[in-house]
């Protein structure tokens, strides 16, 4: 463990670390655009220059640590150098922060204010480039904003493996371009380049001009898209801003989804399905309890369901693999002894969806299959002769399979064929409206938190199970 000195402070470093890595581990931030902990080191942005006593300046990201070395991250020369580099980085950048989605979380903007602050000293025209380069139906590239750090290019080579992006031409005409075979369009991880981009060059078309980022806040959550259970941030309006907002519909909408770095599960990445959670959660919701197809008060519907359960001779439960650990455990506790329980796959792979790959995506498209199977077994759902009641929790049940004469109770969040057919329908909250945990396929438990209020008429499933079992029935 060599000791190095960063700005006079002794820092323990590992043998194979660079000065950049050792500094970060010690909490010293050295500015960088191109360097990223999960990607190779191209050393092209040149902003991470530090001074080493007796050796002059060089880039920290490619500098191996050496015992006793004295590194200065803020010497006069380093400070002057950063200013000079920022002048150059911004030379052909349009500085159109006023209409740029990245403003507020842009590394270039932050560094400019922190390390430079000087207006441009150039009076010459900027080099024009493609403003709206449609890389895919998901991502658009503004080549003028691009500072050619190559993070996105390296991501497609080193992480996603699509080789979808490259840098073409030379000098200040160099441009990030997609491979003409459409490899980038087919990259299921493509949206990570939007987060990787240190400026506003790569933009999500979903999020384009939808919100200034300072009106948003993230809530930690877990992607339910497959049994990997990647941890994510669900971005939505700040509470404070909701009070002032005119467009109130936006208050309970997902603005965007980004990865929540998690070495145990997904590292710094997620797949595109996770970005599209709004498509899942903003489908038409069940908000009205029903009995026999007619609207009913929730208490009335619960009572009707309780009666059906109490009177059934051979009741079967189809347990949701989207239920949280807490919900699944509550279900087992309250209803597990009364009904024959099977774990149901709420979601199956959609047409065109990547089934499984070596990076993150898993074939099981439900977030909590593992915990559900631990509690209720591996057996596929089946209806023994004489089944007279099916309690269906969650999506994915085809009511055509309902045994003749059997009654159907549905606890669900979204409309489908089963909710239409239900004898009793109990609207339930989604994971965005309650706290909980999922257990991923490897047994890692991750937490999600509520970010939207439960709509009126909707109950948390966990609260229903005890009521349905009649345990506190009057």
């Amino acid at each position, binding site marked *: 463990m060599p000791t190095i000195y960063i700005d006079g402070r002794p820092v323990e470093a590992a043998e194979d670390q660079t000065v950049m890595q050792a500094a970060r581990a010690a909490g010293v931030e050295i500015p960088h655009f191109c360097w990223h902990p999960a990607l190779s080191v191209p050393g092209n942005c040149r902003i991470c220059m530090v001074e080493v006593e007796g050796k002059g300046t060089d880039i920290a990201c490619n500098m191996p640590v050496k015992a006793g070395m004295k590194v200065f991250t803020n010497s006069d020369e380093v400070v002057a150098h950063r200013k000079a580099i920022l002048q150059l980085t911004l030379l052909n950048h349009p500085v159109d922060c006023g209409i740029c989605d990245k403003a507020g979380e842009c590394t270039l903007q932050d560094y400019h204010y922190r390390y430079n602050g000087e207006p441009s000293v150039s009076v010459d025209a900027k080099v024009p480039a493609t403003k709206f380069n449609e890389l895919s139906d998901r991502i658009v590239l503004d080549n003028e904003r691009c500072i050619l750090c190559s993070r996105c290019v390296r991501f497609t080579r080193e992480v996603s493996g699509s080789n979808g992006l*490259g840098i073409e031409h030379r000098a200040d005409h160099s441009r990030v371009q997609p491979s003409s075979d459409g*490899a980038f369009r087919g990259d299921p991880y493509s949206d990570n380049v939007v987060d990787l981009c240190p400026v506003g060059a790569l933009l999500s078309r979903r999020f384009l001009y939808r919100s200034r980022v300072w009106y948003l806040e993230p809530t930690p959550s877990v992607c339910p898209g497959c049994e990997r259970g990647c941890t994510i941030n669900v971005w939505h309006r700040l509470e404070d801003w909701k009070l002032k907002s005119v467009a109130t519909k936006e208050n309970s909408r997902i603005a965007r989804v980004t990865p929540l770095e998690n070495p145990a599960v997904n590292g710094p990445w997620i797949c595109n399905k996770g970005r599209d959670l709004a498509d899942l959660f903003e489908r038409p919701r069940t908000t009205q309890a029903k009995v026999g197809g007619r609207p009913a008060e929730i208490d009335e519907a619960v009572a009707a369901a309780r009666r059906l359960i109490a009177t059934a001779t051979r009741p079967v439960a189809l347990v949701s693999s989207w239920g949280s650990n807490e919900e699944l455990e509550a279900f087992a506790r309250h209803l597990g002894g009364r009904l024959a329980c099977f774990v149901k796959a709420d979601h199956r792979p959609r047409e065109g969806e990547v089934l499984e790959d070596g990076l993150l995506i898993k074939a099981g498209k439900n977030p909590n299959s593992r915990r559900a199977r631990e509690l209720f077994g591996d057996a596929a759902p089946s209806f023994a002769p004489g089944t007279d009641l099916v309690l269906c929790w969650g999506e994915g049940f085809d009511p055509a399979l309902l045994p003749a004469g059997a009654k159907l109770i549905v606890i669900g969040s979204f409309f489908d064929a089963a909710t239409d057919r239900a004898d009793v329908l109990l609207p339930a909250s989604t994971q965005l409206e309650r706290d909980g945990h999922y257990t991923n396929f490897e047994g890692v438990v991750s937490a999600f938190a509520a970010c939207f209020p439960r709509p009126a008429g909707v109950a948390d499933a966990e609260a229903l199970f005890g009521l349905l079992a009649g345990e506190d029935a009057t």
Partner: protein
Amino acid sequence: MRHLIPEFEAMKKRLPPGENGVLVLPCLKRIQEDRGYVADEDIDGLVEYLGVPRIQVEEVLSFYGMLRRAPIGRFHLQVCHNVSCSMHGAERLLDRLQSRLGIAPGQTTPDGRFTLSRVECLGSCGTAPVLMVNERYYELQSEPLLDVLLEELGKP
């Protein structure tokens, strides 16, 4: 490009085994020599033959000044306008060629006979000014010599 594969295979004999990327540039140059430029189908064929990502081939094509994605004239006149050639009248030569051919650098005459380009140092500074016609160097050029050359190349 497929008819060139036997040639590409022959190149491998003197190369370290298992390093297919090393053939990218030699193959592209050979393809261009054969067709006059590198067409989309050549890229398709090369990507398949070498097993390299298509973007790698596209980057290479855009990076190197001599590689072309479109056909040019039968005679490619490349005038060096770097230091030593400029010191011996390269700009005058360029002006002469532009007025004789009626085209600007980067353009091709309507009959498809001549393409005019400016290029950087050709490594022939001692015999400046120099121009290249296809692969051949024409050194110690002057306006009268250019007129003779154009006549030889069939300029009416």
